Every structure is written in structure tokens, then in C-alpha cells.
């Protein structure tokens, strides 16, 4: 802190002694217009080159600027447009300027320091940006996380299931943490967002992970799903430490920076949009084609009689259709108002969404409000406020693994088509003799709901403390809060097959309340100076940051319910669990950026962080960064006409990842025996020396622009090393503990990202733009201080991940012939060989057409849905013969025959090619409506076309949610859906 003030004084001193010399002066005026529409551009920055002096254009696009001296060079810049320059002098003192829209995005501004930004063409990192058009322009998005699929390079985005309300894991540039979180840090308008997944306490019924209420197999959504994608102006993705170092100890998984929409000066714009659509199951598998012989072989003679009777009575049921065949309705209504004056601007948006899903009684409802305000308080002070309120409710059904035969998924795969589950005329459901539960009864009677009320607000103040024509000093202060109250409600009434007649616990009601409050504050000084010539600028920033996290979850579980009551009081037995998370982080950040005439741009920075989550709370962890970009095409010697851009860039940085909260404590938890309270040692041994994981990343590459930048090519190679990897070390269980979190491994990710952007056709009548992305990543464990171990699944013979030095951390092992020294065989890898996405948009007259394809090549899943179906004799491909190398056995018998001795049949290729999004729109011109409004109508869809050989509903699946390595293990999930939408959008 003391250092900070010293620096501050120095800066102030410096600003005072820099004199201002005045001599000749003239005024230049002009108007700035859009090159394609001819409309005035409001808010264009007009700056005297080599100085900080400038103005912005007014509502008519006009500007007026006083200039010292007799001539000057002016630079005109505006977000989304190419920057232009022009010479003025006391004689030529009017200059109108036409700016062309930047389809290449080279001019777009990218955040590189905590308080500064840089235009993309000067950037030394490969930072992905997603505009609102890419995010929501093609189709209505169900959730914010779901909107990101296939839209940028270097990411592996996987949905955990098809359950409504989200639940997605995002891994940027491969796995960064074996045991901790791989999820990126989300920041919206400067506010640190909570992205927890909070279990609804279903384990008391599912028993998926032994006793108790809590487990990671409940398939909760992650809280980033709350953010309304329609509110977003742009998303920047800092994929690795070289770009994300300034976020320090939380940035190892990358950072996703979300900027919401702001109003623009001018007439108030009103937009009203309605979309209506439906969902259907993405990949129905069908049911096994039974005949008498097959029933006899799989089950018994008794079952043959039942089968024949049902066949004759016409009551053989297609239960897949019964359970997953619902065509749920989708509806999204959206109203936005935005506008402003030259001093103030506002943006207001409301979204009301009501989506059903493919299983009856499940769905997602959301209402969200956003109000963003900006105001120029004085000529030196600007204030911005961003606020949103979200209310959402997700009914997520009851799926995934269990040990009690109660989830709908497990019960469904256990049930034979001749078993009768439909309720009688009085609504009484028969018991399911094939399983502990009748899944139709479960579907109709249970509740598994997550409801949230969430308030996210941020405020920022930008004060220009000092300014002359050679330098300026700005202060930026920010504060943000993310507050929510999440209620989870899981009700299993005692009329259910698995809760009545001595089964289960005569009804279960689990009610959870989580209150979360994140606050973050920061203060920065940014000093920009042009020492000497116009060719050099130096930007210095320094700042302090503080983040506080407070999460308090209470889960009440009542069993033995009084009749149909669901109140926790109305029960014979109650249990309560509480978990609190309190963490405080403090940090500082300094950065120096040198820009030599846009030819050479170099940055050096350092972040220091400490946190109460570390073993030593006051130890500072330092994260440096450095980068260099060279724009060869800006140099005078450049003479290649058709190459408009050639930039070489290299960047290095470090970032961290905290241990899971509580890793440093060895706790004694509470327990009760016969009403007497007791304390017992945790099975997890604390580690009082625990430190953050440290990621070090070096990336380099080039950007190439050809034919007036109509063709853009970018190439990036990165090496990402994660040291002090936090592992859950298996400790000898004779110690009384079973695990401990230790810093015990290193890992290396190497990858390539290639992009090809084409904007070859751009006429008034037809525009075509195309973006092709390719990315691949290879990971390897380079150091492991503990014995190699398997994790992330259920058992080695069913397929697990293995952590072993010299091997990929995502390799999938099992048992089989010719085992290695661990007695295991490698059957695959959860990581894809490569991924590609292909986005095209075509505008022809009033038609807009866009399409996004996504190809994931390779990568394996552990498919235990098939295992459980096989064990119950219900697999859709049970009798098909395409697995047995000898061609004798049906797939079901073959797989079961290999069970225990060969894991291969249940480890399957999870690659796919799918059309993520498609949209077709027609713009009805304003003239039809007397210029009062314009109308846009269209059709869109998600995941309408899919190709994969994976033998289940969707290769994108995770029984264990998104944590660590565990994605890609499938146990009877909520199947994924296709979404079809019709749109009407009116703009006033």
C-alpha cells in the first residue's frame, strides 16, 4: 500500500511539471458518416494523432476540434469500424470522413489490462470475441452457457445432460486442473459471477454416492445459466494465462468477460421479439425388438407368457416414447428499449422465457430484467451502472446414477415393454415389478426444482484527474455485487412405489436454501503519455483489487412425511446440513504498455494475489505477463499490395487456481447417535500448506490479412504448463483418512488454433461471410509425486480415467487383454483429436441465412447407460450383431460376456458432427409500415442435424457434472433435445 501512494505522488508530480506551450490555434469541423448506409455516426472519437486531445461526434455526426499549431493529423475511430486518418491545417479546416464497417473485427477493442483495452490489430494474444449477433442472432438460446458452443476456438464445451435450465462444463485449452475446477472465471461488466453448482439433495433417494443428502451426481445446473444471453453485447474469452494473468489466482481456467448492451445517443429504439417453438428428443434409440425366444433367453418362461399376453392384447409399450416423447413448447418474449443523449445513455431489457422439455413436468422458466445507465457527470467524470435481476425456475426431473432403482433413467432401462405402468382410470399407478420404481409415476408425482432470485449490479467511475495534449491520468473505480437466493425443492411423496409400503422412507422432502454474496472492488490509475513524437505512446496502469465470497447453504431433509404434506415440519424425521464458504482475496496489478506507432506493441505486467483460502493467508503469489506484437504491414518497407496485414505475436503469462475451499482444514464433523451429538474425523485430511495451482502459458502465432482483409488467417500455438497441480491424493486409509489435497503434479497442454475468415462477397445485394475454426489440444502429465491412480468413474472394469506420469490425464483405462504394469489397458481418451466449427452467414436482399456446424473428431465416453440396459436385457441393439468379432453373439450378450474381463464394449467413440444452429430470416422493409417500424420473421433451430456413432442419446453428457476430469461418463441421463423456433421481431 505504501508503495502505491509513493507511485501515485510521483505520477501527480510528473503531471504538474509537464508544461503546456501554446502558440497558434485553429478549429477544424466536419461530419462522420457510415460508408455503406450514409447515416451519421454518433460518438466517433476524433483525436489529434500523437496526443490525447480529442472530441466525439454529436447526434448529427458533427464534430468541432480546437487544434494548436498550423496543421495536424486526425484519427477517426469508432467501435466496429475501420479507423481512418486525415490531414487538416488552418487552411483546410473542414474534413468530412466516411468510415467503413469492420467485418474483420481488426479494429474491435479488446480488454488486456484490468483497466485498459487495446484494439485487436495490436493484440499479442489470440483472444476470442463473440458478438451479440453471433451469440443470439441465429437462434434463441436456452441458456447463456449453451449459447457458446462452437463459437470460438480452443474450447471444449459439453452439456452435462439435456435437463432444462442448463448444466454445462467449459474447458479452455484442455484440462487445467485434475481435481479442482476447470471452469473459467466469469466477469460481467466488472462483477465476479458465482458459477456454483448446488446439489438439491437428491442423494437421500438415489443413494448414488452412498449415504447422506449430498452428492455430485444430482445433475444440478451451473449458475452461469442465469445470465440472459439477450442482454450481452459481447463476450471476450481469455483462454490461457498469457491473456488472463491479470486475473491472478482465479484465472487458470481462463476468463470469460461479458459486456452487456448499452444505449447509444440518438432516437430511443424499441424492439419487441417473440419466438415460439418446440423441443423433441435429439436421438431416439428405439426399444429392443422382443420375440418369444428372446424373452425366454433373457428372462424366463413366466415372462414369455406375460410378453405373449401383452402382444395379443396390443399392450406392448414403447416406453422411450412414453417418457421422452413429449414435444415441449418453447416461448421467449423479449422487449428492449435503448437510447440516450450525448451525456447519458440507457439500455433496458426484459426477457420472459417459458420452455418445456421432452419429459413431461420438466421445464425452465425465466424472467430477467436489465437496466444499464451511463452518465457523463462532468467533463472529467463518467459513471456507469449495470444492473440485472433474474428470477428463474427449473424443473429438472430425476435422472442419472442411483443405487436404489429410483431415478427415471435407471427405472426406464430396467422396464420391459410388456410391463404395464400406465395409471388406471382413477390415477392409480401399478407397481413396476422390474424396478424399484414406476418411472411414469415418478415423473408425474415428484418435484425437483431449482428457483433463483438473483441480483447482479456493478458500478464504475472513470475520472480524468489530469489531462493535457501529451498525457492524461485517469482513475477508474469499480464495485460489483452478485447476490442470490437459490431454493431447491425435491419432493418424493409417500404415494410413490419406492416410498410406500415399507420401501424408502415413507416420503422425502428436501428443501435447500443457498444465499450467495460475492462482492468485488477495484481501483486503478491509468496514465497515458506520448513522450516526444507522435510515434510512441506509453500506458501505465496500477491498481488494487479485493474480492469477497460468502456462500451459505442449508439443506433440510425430512422423511416419513405426514400424508401428502411436504413442509419439513410435517414429518417423522428431519435432518439438516449446512455448508458455508467464506473467502477473501486481495491483490494488486501493474502493467506497462508500449506502442510504437502501431508497429510494435509490447506489454509487461504483474499481478500479486493473496487469499484466505491458501495455507498462508498473507503470502503473496505473483503472476507475471509479457507480450509482444509486431505489425509488419505498418512498417514503411512493407510493399506487398495484397497482404494488408501481417502480425507476429508472442505472449507469456501465469495464472493460478485455488484449492477447493476447505482443503487446508482437517475438520471434525457432526453426527448423532441415539440423540447424543458426536464429532468424528473427516475422511479428508487437511493440508495446511496448500497453495494455488500455477499455470504458465506461452503462446505465439501470426495473423494474416489478404485482399483488403477479405481473407483473414490466424494461427496460434500454445504451450500451457500447470505446476503444483492440486490432486486428491489417496492416503493409506489405515491412517483414518482416505484422501488429502496436495500440490503434487505437473501437466502440459500443447495446442494449435487456426482460423480462416472470409468476407469475399460484400455488395448491397448480397453479403457472405464465413468463419472456419480448427483447434486441437494434447495434454500430458509430466510429473506425479504420488502413485498413478484411477478416478472419475465407478470402477476400473467399467472404465475410469487414469492419472499417470507421461500419459494424458484424460486417458480412459479399463481391464482387458495385455494389461500394462498397472494391470490396466488404455481404451481411449476423453479429449477430442480435434474440433472444427464452420459458420456461414449469407444476406441476400431482405433474407438472412446463417448456419453453424460443429465437428468433434474422436474422444471417448464411458457409456454405462448401455451397461445398465444390457444387464436388464432392454438395450435397443441387444440382438443386433455388429460388435462380436466372431459375428455370433448379439451386442447385448457380447458386451455382458466381456464385462469384467474387457472394458472395451462400454467405452465408445463420442465424436460427432452436428449443425448447432441454423436461422433463416426475412426482413420486411420499413417502407411497408410507413417507416414506423421494421419487422423481421424467421425460423431457427438448435442441433437439428447430428451424426454420431455413439450408442446413446448424445455423446455430450456427464453423470458427475463438470468438475475435474469427470465429463463423459454416462449413466441414464436426461436425453438431449432438438429445438425448433419461429420468430417475429419488431423494431420501432
Amino acid at each position, binding site marked *: 500500500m505504501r508503495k502505491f501512494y509513493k507511485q501515485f505522488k510521483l505520477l501527480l508530480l510528473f503531471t504538474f511539471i509537464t508544461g503546456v506551450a501554446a502558440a497558434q490555434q485553429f478549429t477544424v469541423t466536419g461530419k462522420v458518416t457510415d460508408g455503406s448506409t450514409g447515416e451519421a455516426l454518433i460518438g466517433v472519437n476524433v483525436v489529434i494523432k500523437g496526443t490525447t486531445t480529442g472530441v466525439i461526434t454529436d447526434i448529427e455526426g458533427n464534430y468541432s476540434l480546437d487544434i494548436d499549431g498550423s496543421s495536424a493529423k486526425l484519427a477517426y475511430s469508432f467501435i466496429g469500424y475501420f479507423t481512418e486518418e486525415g490531414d487538416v491545417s488552418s487552411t483546410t479546416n473542414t474534413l468530412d470522413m466516411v468510415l467503413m464497417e469492420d467485418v474483420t473485427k481488426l479494429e474491435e477493442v479488446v480488454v488486456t489490462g484490468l483497466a485498459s483495452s487495446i484494439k485487436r490489430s495490436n493484440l499479442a494474444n489470440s483472444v476470442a470475441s463473440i458478438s451479440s449477433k453471433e451469440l443470439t442472432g441465429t437462434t434463441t438460446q436456452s441458456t447463456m452457457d449453451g449459447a457458446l458452443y462452437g463459437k470460438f476456438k480452443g474450447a471444449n464445451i459439453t452439456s452435462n445432460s439435456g435437463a432444462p435450465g442448463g448444466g454445462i462444463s467449459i474447458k479452455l485449452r484442455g484440462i487445467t486442473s485434475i481435481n479442482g475446477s476447470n471452469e473459467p472465471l466469469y466477469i460481467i461488466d466488472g462483477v465476479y459471477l458465482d458459477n456454483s453448482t448446488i446439489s438439491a439433495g437428491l442423494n437421500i433417494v438415489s443413494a448414488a454416492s452412498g449415504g447422506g443428502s449430498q452428492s455430485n451426481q444430482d445433475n444440478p445446473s451451473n449458475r452461469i445459466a442465469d445470465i440472459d444471453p439477450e442482454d450481452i453485447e459481447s463476450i471476450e474469452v481469455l483462454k490461457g494465462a498469457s491473456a488472463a494473468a491479470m486475473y491472478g489466482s482465479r484465472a487458470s481456467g481462463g476468463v470469460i468477460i461479458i459486456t452487456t448492451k448499452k444505449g447509444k445517443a440518438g432516437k430511443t429504439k424499441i424492439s419487441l421479439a417473440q419466438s415460439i417453438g418446440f423441443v423433441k428428443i435429439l436421438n431416439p434409440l428405439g426399444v429392443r425388438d422382443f420375440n418369444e425366444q428372446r424373452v425366454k433367453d433373457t428372462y424366463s418362461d413366466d415372462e414369455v407368457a406375460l410378453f405373449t399376453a401383452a402382444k395379443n392384447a396390443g399392450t406392448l409399450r414403447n416406453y422411450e416414447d412414453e417418457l421422452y416423447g413429449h414435444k415441449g413448447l418453447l416461448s421467449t418474449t423479449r422487449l428492449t428499449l435503448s437510447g440516450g443523449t450525448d451525456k447519458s445513455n440507457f439500455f433496458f431489457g426484459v426477457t420472459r422465457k417459458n420452455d418445456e422439455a421432452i419429459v413431461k413436468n420438466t421445464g425452465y422458466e425465466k424472467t430477467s430484467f436489465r437496466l444499464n445507465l451511463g452518465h457523463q457527470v462532468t467533463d472529467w467524470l463518467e459513471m456507469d451502472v449495470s444492473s440485472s435481476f433474474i428470477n428463474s425456475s427449473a424443473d429438472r426431473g430425476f435422472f442419472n446414477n442411483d443405487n436404489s*432403482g429410483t431415478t427415471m433413467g435407471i427405472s426406464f432401462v430396467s422396464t420391459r415393454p410388456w410391463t404395464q405402468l400406465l395409471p388406471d382410470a382413477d390415477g392409480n399407478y401399478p407397481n413396476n415389478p422390474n424396478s424399484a420404481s414406476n418411472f411414469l409415476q415418478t415423473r408425474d408425482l415428484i418435484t425437483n426444482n431449482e428457483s433463483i432470485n438473483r441480483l447482479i449490479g456493478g458500478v464504475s467511475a472513470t475520472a480524468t484527474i489530469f489531462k493535457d495534449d501529451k498525457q492524461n491520468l485517469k482513475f477508474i473505480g469499480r464495485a460489483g455485487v452478485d447476490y442470490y437466493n437459490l431454493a431447491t425443492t425435491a419432493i418424493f411423496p409417500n404415494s410413490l412405489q419406492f416410498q410406500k409400503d415399507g420401501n424408502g422412507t415413507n416420503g422425502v422432502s428436501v428443501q435447500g436454501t443457498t444465499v450467495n454474496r460475492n462482492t468485488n472492488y477495484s481501483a486503478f490509475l491509468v496514465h497515458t503519455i506520448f513522450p516526444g513524437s507522435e510515434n510512441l505512446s506509453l500506458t501505465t496502469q496500477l491498481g488494487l483489487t479485493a474480492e469477497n465470497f460468502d456462500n451459505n447453504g442449508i439443506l433440510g431433509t425430512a422423511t*416419513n412425511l405426514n400424508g401428502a404434506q411436504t413442509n419439513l415440519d410435517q414429518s417423522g424425521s428431519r435432518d439438516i446440513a449446512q455448508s458455508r464458504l467464506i473467502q477473501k482475496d486481495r491483490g494488486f496489478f501493474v502493467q506497462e504498455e508500449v506502442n510504437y506507432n502501431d508497429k510494435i506493441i509490447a506489454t509487461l505486467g504483474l499481478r500479486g494475489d493473496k487469499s*484466505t483460502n491458501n495455507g498462508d493467508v498473507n503470502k503473496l503469489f505473483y503472476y507475471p505477463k509479457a507480450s509482444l506484437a509486431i505489425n509488419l504491414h505498418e512498417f514503411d518497407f512493407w510493399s506487398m499490395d495484397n497482404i494488408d496485414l501481417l502480425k507476429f505475436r508472442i505472449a507469456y503469462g501465469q495464472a493460478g487456481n485455488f484449492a477447493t475451499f476447505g482443503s487446508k*482444514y482437517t475438520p471434525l464433523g457432526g*453426527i448423532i447417535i441415539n440423540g447424543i451429538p458426536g464429532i468424528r474425523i473427516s475422511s479428508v*485430511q487437511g493440508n495446511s500448506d496448500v497453495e494455488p495451482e500455477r499455470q504458465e502459458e506461452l503462446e505465439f502465432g501470426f495473423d494474416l490479412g489478404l485482399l483488403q482483409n477479405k481473407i483473414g488467417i490466424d494461427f496460434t500455438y500454445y504451450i500451457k504448463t500447470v505446476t503444483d497441480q492440486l490432486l486428491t491424493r489417496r492416503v493409506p486409509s489405515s491412517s483414518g483418512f482416505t484422501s488429502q489435497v496436495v500440490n503434487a503434479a505437473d501437466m502440459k497442454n500443447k495446442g494449435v488454433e487456426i482460423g480462416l475468415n472470409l468476407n469475399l462477397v460484400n455488395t448491397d445485394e448480397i453479403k457472405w461471410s464465413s468463419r472456419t475454426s480448427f483447434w486441437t489440444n494434447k495434454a500430458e502429465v509430466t510429473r506425479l509425486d504420488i502413485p498413478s491412480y484411477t478416478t472419475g468413474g465407478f*470402477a476400473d472394469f467399467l472404465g475410469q480415467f487414469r492419472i499417470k506420469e507421461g500419459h494424458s490425464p484424460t486417458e480412459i483405462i479399463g481391464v482387458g487383454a495385455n494389461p500394462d504394469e498397472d494391470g490396466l489397458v488404455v481404451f481411449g481418451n476423453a479429449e477430442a483429436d480435434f474440433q472444427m466449427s464452420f459458420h456461414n452467414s449469407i444476406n441476400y436482399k431482405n433474407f438472412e441465412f446463417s448456419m453453424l456446424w460443429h465437428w468433434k473428431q474422436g474422444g471417448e465416453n464411458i457409456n454405462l447407460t448401455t451397461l445398465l440396459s444390457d444387464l436388464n436385457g432392454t438395450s435397443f441393439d441387444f440382438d443386433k450383431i455388429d460388435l462380436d468379432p466372431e459375428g455370433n453373439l448379439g451386442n447385448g450378450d457380447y458386451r455382458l460376456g466381456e464385462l469384467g474381463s474387457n472394458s472395451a464394449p462400454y467405452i465408445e467413440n463420442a465424436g460427432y458432427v452436428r449443425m448447432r444452429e441454423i436461422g433463416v430470416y426475412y426482413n420486411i422493409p420499413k417502407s411497408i409500415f410507413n417507416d414506423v417500424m421494421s419487422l423481421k420473421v424467421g425460423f431457427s433451430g438448435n442441433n437439428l442435424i447430428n451424426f454420431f456413432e455413439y450408442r446413446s442419446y448424445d455423446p455430450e453428457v456427464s453423470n458427475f457434472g463438470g468438475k475435474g476430469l469427470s465429463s463423459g461418463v454416462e449413466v441414464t441421463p436426461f436425453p438431449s433435445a432438438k429445438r425448433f423456433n419461429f420468430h417475429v421481431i419488431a423494431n420501432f
Partner: protein
Amino acid sequence: MKNIYLKISFVLTLILGLGLSSCNLDEIPDPNNAGLDDIEKNATDGDIRTLISGTESLMRNDIGFYYDVSGIIGREYYFFTGSDPRYTGELLGKGESTLDKAGFYGTRPYAGRYRVIKNANILIAAVKNVTAFSDQEKNGIVGFAKTVQAYSYLLALNLQYQNGIRVDVSDPENLGAFLSHSEALAAISSLLDDGNSMLSSAGDDFAFTLSSGFSDPVAFAKFNRAIAARVALYQDNKAGALSALNNSFMDLNGDFNDGPIHFFSLAGGDAINQVFRTPDQSEALVAHPSFITDLRPNDSRISKVAVRSGAAELDDLSGDYDVAIYSSQESPIKLIRNEELILIYAEANIGTNNTEAITALNIIRNTHGLGDYAGGMTDAELTDEVLYNRRYSLFGEGHRWIDMRRHNRLDQLPIDRTGDDVWEQMPRPVSEVGVQGG
């Protein structure tokens, strides 16, 4: 320039207001739990009592797996569940499958026992620093802790058998070596003796309450000796067994069911009996068919199973009877009971006093509807008779597998499917392999 002071005060106000001026962080204690360090160094008498209840409670932790593993491998019963193939696969050695050193069935009951031992070690360490207790009270607490530890070691050893177990585990960073089966039995025996001598100098009352029964030093010492008798039997030390029985709660004329229990309750936060499964469901604890076929006429122990309305079938196995030794999730499980002690008494007398062995056996037989023993008098014939009665009297209580093993009779257990195996022991848990001494 004139409003520079305004600007500076604006900035400073914001910096101070944002709370950025304080850079030092204070350690935040675990908001959710008591801390180990604190308990070991500064426990109160109240903390000690909660540690004791916690230790007693932990004894139930994953204990269901212990009974299921020995019941399934010992061919006493099957567990049919659609949720996990390992109960009818690996545990029965189906086809080519073998036991998994990382499988929950082996690792969880093992780790569960050592967690009890750890909690008791914390108790032993913490109680030293508590001034609120008298020396007698401390003896009672340590006597309790050591007895409970010995019992837990014994169950872990029963699973591990010839793999042996660690007994010196007080320092998690420096665990002792694995002891062989016989060394471990000797260590357990001497730990029981230690506990017994502490209990004998612990006065008349404990300074704590246990959930039900055996709540004073004298009664608890009788439990200690009962376990000592079991250990002596496993050591084939028949004299030792008889001497231990003498000081135990064995009562030849008493209720067979007397003995300390694991308490279970559906009350919130408490634990339930994990061996109980609702009868006549598709997910079921099914008695091995040999239970019925081998049962002698008139043996009333047929009441330990209940006929199903339809056969249970899974994985080419089937059975017509459910295990019915417990009636609900709240039924207690006995740690050791009088009937076992009488059977130990009978077995320990074989070879030295066969008449007394028959007397004890007749107590068991008569109670279960069988007349007096009329078979041969040789040691071997009497051993057969003891094993029959142990099989049915202690059905589902974790004995048959161990009994057949210690009498080298595992090959007499029935094989249901071609290729099935009868395992001799659990593999050493994966956490113990490849580490210090492992």
C-alpha cells in the same frame, strides 16, 4: 487544474470507501466444523464426550458393506440390485472377474474401521490434556477407546486375512508396517488386554454415556473379554478363549441375544441399518438356496429367512427366500452376542472336554427346535456340529466365510455358476498399495 483537489479527494474517498486500504488478511477458521488441532490441544470435557459419541457412531460407518461382503462371499446370501453388477459379479468371482483393489466393497468397510481407530486415537491424545476428568475417568475413556479400536482392527483383519493389516497408525505421516495375520491377531489381543486393564482401574462409572447398554467399566470390560474370546478362537488358542469367556458376559442360561449393539434410528442425522432390505422387492437380499436345502428338519432358524411371493432372479442366480434377520431400518446390529459366546465355548472345549462342548451345543440345539445331539463324539464330528450351528445361529452376522476359512473349508462352499470363485480374502486396498510399507 483548479478542481484537482476535488478530483484527488474523490479518488481517495473511493479508495477508502471501497475497503481497499486494508491489505492484511486474517486467517478464517473453518466455518463449518471443529478443527483437529484445536481438539487435540484444547479439548474440554464436553468435547471429549462428543468425541466418544462420534467414535461410537463411526463404528456404524460403512459397516453394512462388511456384513454384505462376508455374507455374499460366504454364500449366505445374494444381493440383487439393478444398480451395481459387482454384487453378483466380482464378489462371486463370476466368469473371469476378480476382486478389484479399488472396489467399494473392499475399500469402504476397511477405511471405515480405520476411521473409528483414528477417532479413538484423537480421543486418547485429547483426553490427556483435559483437567476436568479424574484419573479413573480417564482410564475408563482410554479403556473404551482401546477396546473399540481392537474390535475395529479385528474386522479389518477379517477382510484382509493373510494380507495382514497395519496396527501402528497413530501418526498418519509415519504409519507402521503391515503385520501378518497371526502378528495382527496377537497385537489385537494385547490391545484388548491393555483396554481391559484400564477398565479394571476405572471405578464404577464412566464419565460418558453410550447409546445403549454396557455403559459402565465393569459391563464394558465383559464386552472387551467377549471380543478377546473371539480373537483367541481365531488364534486357535482354546484355553485363552475359555479364560476370556469366563470374564465375559457369556451366560449359558441367558438370552442368546444379549450383547452390545450398533444403535440405528431413522431420526434425523442418525444412521440406519444398512443390512436390512425391504423383503419381496426386485432389489433384494436373497438367501442362498443352500440355506434351505442344508437346513435340518424342525430347525426353527428357518425364521431367519422369509419366503418370497415370486423367485428373485438376476444374473443367472435365483432364490425363493429373502434374508429376514432384521425387521426394519431401525433394527440394531449386535457387535457380539451371547449365542456366539456359547458357540465359542462349545468349540473351545472340543479336544479337551467334548462332553462340555455337547452340553453347550445342546443349549443351542434345544432352543432352535432340535433335540439333544446324538452324533459321533470325535473332535471332527463335533467341529462339524459347531460349524452347522454357527452357520445357522449366526446367519448373516458375518461369520460363515471366516469360519469356513479358518477351518480350511472354503472349497466346501457352493458354486452357483460355472467359473464362479470363492475368495479367500479382500485384496489390499489400493490406497495401501505402493506406499510406505504397502
